[in-house]
C-alpha cells in the first residue's frame, strides 16, 4: 500500500489551513503564534521542533500521519485497514444526521475515520501503531476505531510486533450509542490476547484523552505515557465543575497531575518520542 509521500508537515500545514476550528494563526503561513505562550515565531522553527514551541514547549495538536512519520524509521511504514469506514446504522440524528456528519467530515478533513493504523520499525524494532485524528469528530470512538484496534492487535500478534496506541479523543461517539460503549469492552478483550502473547503495549496519551478512551485501552498500557501538558481524565473538567460546584485547581487532570497521582510511567517530549520508544522496545527484547 505504498503511496507517494509529501513530508508530513507540509500535509499538516495544508490540513491546518483548511480547518477553521483548529486554525493556527499563521498569516501567509510564515509565522506561527503559540497556542500556549502566544509568542510568535517562524513556522519553519515549529516544523523543525515537531510542532512543539521552542519557547514554552507547548505541544500543538498533530495528526496520526505526523506520529507515523516521527516514529517509523526512514518514515517507512504500511498503513493498514484503510478500507474500514463508519456507517450510520442507528439512523442517529441530532442537529444533523450522523450519515451527513460522516460525509461532511470526510470532505473537510480528507480522513476516513478518527483512527489510523500503521506498521513499521522504530529504532529497528517492529511496531504496530494505532493513532487518532482529533479532526475527525473529536477523535471519537465508534465501531471503526474499535475494529481497527482489534485488527491492529491481531496484526501485532501475528507478526510479533509491539503495539502502541496514540490517544487524542473526547471519548465515545454518541451517534453510535451502545456500539460505541461496547468498543471499550471489545478493545479491553483484545488487549487480553496481546497480553497473553507477551507483546509490549504502549499507551501514549496526548491532548486531550478523556471519557471512554481513558476508561479502557488508554489506561491499560504496560507503559502508560503522555505528552507534556495534555488533558487526561475520565470526566471532563466542565462536567466535574458542574457536578461539584467547585472550581478545579490549576493543572488539574494534566499529564503532570496524572504522573504525580501514579497513573503514568513517564511524560515524554515529542522530540524524544522516537528514541525513547526505541530504547524501551530494546530493553523488552534484551
Amino acid at each position, binding site marked *: 500500500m505504498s503511496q507517494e509521500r509529501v513530508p508530513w508537515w507540509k500535509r499538516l500545514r495544508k490540513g491546518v489551513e483548511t480547518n477553521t476550528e483548529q486554525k493556527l494563526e499563521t498569516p501567509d503561513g510564515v509565522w506561527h503564534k503559540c497556542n500556549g505562550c502566544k509568542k510568535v515565531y517562524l513556522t519553519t522553527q515549529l516544523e523543525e521542533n515537531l510542532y512543539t514551541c521552542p519557547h514554552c514547549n507547548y505541544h500543538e495538536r498533530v495528526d496520526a500521519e505526523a506520529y507515523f512519520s516521527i516514529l517509523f524509521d526512514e518514515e517507512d511504514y504500511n498503513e493498514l485497514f484503510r*478500507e474500514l469506514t463508519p456507517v450510520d*446504522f442507528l439512523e442517529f440524528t441530532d442537529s444533523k444526521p450522523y450519515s451527513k456528519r460522516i460525509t461532511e467530515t470526510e470532505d473537510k478533513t480528507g480522513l476516513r475515520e478518527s483512527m489510523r493504523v500503521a506498521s513499521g520499525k522504530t529504532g529497528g524494532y517492529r511496531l504496530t501503531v494505532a493513532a487518532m485524528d482529533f479532526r475527525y469528530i473529536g477523535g471519537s470512538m465508534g465501531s471503526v476505531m474499535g475494529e481497527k484496534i482489534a485488527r491492529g492487535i491481531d496484526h501485532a500478534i501475528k507478526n510479533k510486533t509491539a503495539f502502541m496506541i496514540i490517544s487524542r479523543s473526547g471519548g465515545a461517539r454518541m451517534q453510535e450509542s451502545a*456500539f460505541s460503549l461496547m468498543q*471499550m469492552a471489545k478493545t479491553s*478483550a483484545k488487549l487480553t490476547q496481546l497480553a497473553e502473547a507477551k507483546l509490549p503495549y504502549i499507551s501514549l496519551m496526548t491532548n486531550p484523552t478523556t471519557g471512554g478512551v481513558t476508561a479502557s485501552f488508554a489506561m491499560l498500557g504496560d507503559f502508560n505515557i503522555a505528552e507534556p501538558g495534555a488533558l487526561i481524565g*475520565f470526566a471532563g473538567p466542565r462536567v466535574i465543575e458542574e457536578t*461539584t460546584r467547585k472550581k478545579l485547581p490549576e493543572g488539574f487532570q494534566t499529564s503532570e497531575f496524572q504522573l504525580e497521582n501514579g497513573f503514568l510511567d513517564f511524560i515524554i517530549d515529542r522530540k524524544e518520542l522516537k528514541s525513547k520508544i526505541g530504547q524501551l522496545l530494546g530493553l523488552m527484547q534484551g
Partner: protein
Amino acid sequence: MTYLDFEKPIEELQKQIDHVRNGKHLIKPKVSAEELEIRLRETQNDIYSRLSTWQRIQVSRHPERPYTLAYIEKMTTNFIELFGDRSFRDDKAIVGGFAELNGETVMIIGHQKGINTKMRQYRNFGMPNPEGYRKALRLMKLAEKFNKPIITLIDTPGAYPGEEAEQRGQGEAIARNLFEMVTLKVPVLCIVIGEGASGGALGIGIGDRLMMLENTWYSVISPESCSSILWRSWDFKEKAANALKPTPQDLLQLGIIDGIIPEPPGGAHANPDEAASNLKAAIIANLTELKKLSAEERITKRIDRYSHIGIYQTEQA
C-alpha cells in the same frame, strides 16, 4: 406509592379501590373492589405494554424501585456483605458479598442507590468512586479463587464525576475491571436492574451473558447529558433518549444483550417480590447453562463475543 405522570389512570383506580375498601359507605358502592382491581390490572398492562422510551427510563428511575440489596434479600439466604477495596476505603455505591442462591454459593455485586433522602446521599446516588470498582474487582477475584459464579446487578446514573474520583483514577479503575473481567475463570452473569449509564455501568458489566430487566436502559451516555452535548440544551432529553435506542427491546434487536427479564405489571416497584422471583429464575437458568462449559470455553466465547461487536463498512480506498 409515588406515581409517574403517565400512571395517572392507575393512581385514580387505586384511589377508588382504597375508597371502596376503607371508606364508610351508606349505600353499597356500584363497583366492587374486586371489579376495580381487575380494571387496575388491565390498565397497568395496557400502559406498560406500550411505554415510550422516555417513560421506560422514568420507570427505571422510580424512587420505589428495588435496588441490589433488596434483590439480594429476596433471592438469597446467608448473605454476608463484604466491604472495602483494601487500599483506600469502602465505597457505599457498590455493594457485594457471598450468598446462597438456589442451594449454591454465589458472589453478588451491584450498584446500590439509597432508599430515602438520607440514604441517597450516603450511597452517592449509586455513583461509584474508583474504590467502588476496585472493591468489585477484589470480590470478583475472591469468587474466582473459590470457584463461585459471579452475578453483577447494574443500576447507576454513571461513575461519579468528582475531583477526588479523578485524582484516584476513575478511568484506570474502570479500565482495569474491563480487562480483568474478560478472563475471569468462573461464570459471570451481568444484569441491568435499573439505569445503565456508560462506563460506570460497564465497569461491572463484562461477562458471559448480559441481560436486562424489562423497564431499564443501557447507553453510552444518559439522555440528559446527550441532549446537553449534542443539542446544547437540556430540553431534548426525550429526543436524545429515542435516538440512543437504550431500551432492552432496542438492545436485544441490535444483538447487544442476550435477553429481557419480564417485570410484573406496573413495573418492578409495583411488585418487588414478583420482580425478584423473575430475576432469580433467569439467574438460575443462565448459570445452569454457563456451568456446562469449561472455564477455557467460557473465556474464549467471552473474548469472541466482544471482539465481534461493531458495525462498519469495508470499502476500497
